[in-house]
């Protein structure tokens, strides 16, 4: 199982737990253990807190998925570039590839995504850029208006689809 699939499975397990907690909350909130952080809170208030926490958790899941995806794509690009360097006869071309390979962390991820337009439909690349924008919005403290709404499931599906189209092993 790939790291991206593993992360998605963890997310699904946490989501199930969240649903179970909400069900218990709905049926009998007294069943919560005595050391629960929201002990003594009215159930309705605790429910609101849980829903807010779950929304935050969903956003953190998206950050996690995108980080894993970014690593997979960068690794793939480094492999492709290394292969190019090995096959390059011309010294200047080889030096250029070498230079690019020296600082992969400085590459702009949006530019990298554009490189894949030869393999991946442009519309899907656009969607991944939007996801990346959402990821940045969360990672930078949600200081600006929310760019749009997105859920972990569709993020995972888009990222997996991209990797599949680019023929990168999940």
């Amino acid at each position: 199982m790939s790291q991206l699939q593993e992360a998605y499975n963890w997310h699904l397990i946490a989501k199930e737990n969240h649903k179970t907690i909400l069900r218990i909350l709905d049926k009998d909130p007294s069943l919560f253990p005595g050391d629960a952080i929201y002990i003594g809170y009215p159930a309705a208030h605790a429910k609101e807190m849980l829903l807010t926490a779950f929304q935050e958790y969903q956003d953190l899941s998206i950050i996690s998925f995108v980080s894993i995806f970014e690593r997979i794509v960068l690794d793939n690009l480094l492999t492709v570039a290394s292969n190019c360097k090995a096959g390059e006869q011309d010294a200047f071309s080889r030096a250029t590839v070498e230079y690019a390979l020296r600082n992969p962390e400085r590459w702009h991820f949006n530019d990298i995504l554009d490189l894949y337009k030869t393999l991946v439909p442009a519309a899907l690349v656009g969607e991944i850029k939007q996801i990346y924008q959402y990821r940045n919005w969360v990672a930078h403290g949600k200081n600006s208006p929310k760019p749009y709404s997105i859920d972990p499931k569709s993020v995972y599906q888009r990222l997996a689809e991209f990797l599949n189209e680019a023929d990168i092993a999940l």
Partner: protein
Amino acid sequence: MSELSEYLKEKEQEQVNQEVHWNKVRDEWIQTVGNFLVLIKSWLADEIQDGLIQIEECTEVIDEEHLGSYSVSSLKLHAIGKVLSLRPVGRLIIGAQGRVDLESQSSGERIILLYLSAEEGWVYLPNNERVNYPKLSQSVFKELIKGLLS
């Protein structure tokens, strides 16, 4: 009766048994609060008799999911020019089967009292403690009142 019919009837009965009877839960809670306030008054009987504490009987309206809107008794304790209220917050409470707040109306300081169950009775929630909640007794309750009035 076919096997399927038997199965369906059995499942239907299981569902009925599992159903939470919210009206009963609400009525029992109202009764629990009433009994608790009677107990409080008995704990303070000496102070009430000596005129050191005056009791004011009140009613709160609470609205909770499943239980709807309902009226429940509450108390105000008047002493040394200050007012403490014993105000039910709700029945559907995390980790408990009900909550009543003991609150100073002048300072806003509040102590959360939780009803755990018929067996475990009432406890109070200390500020920084998350386990082993102290059981409420006459002496504990009087100490809490002293703290709020000081």
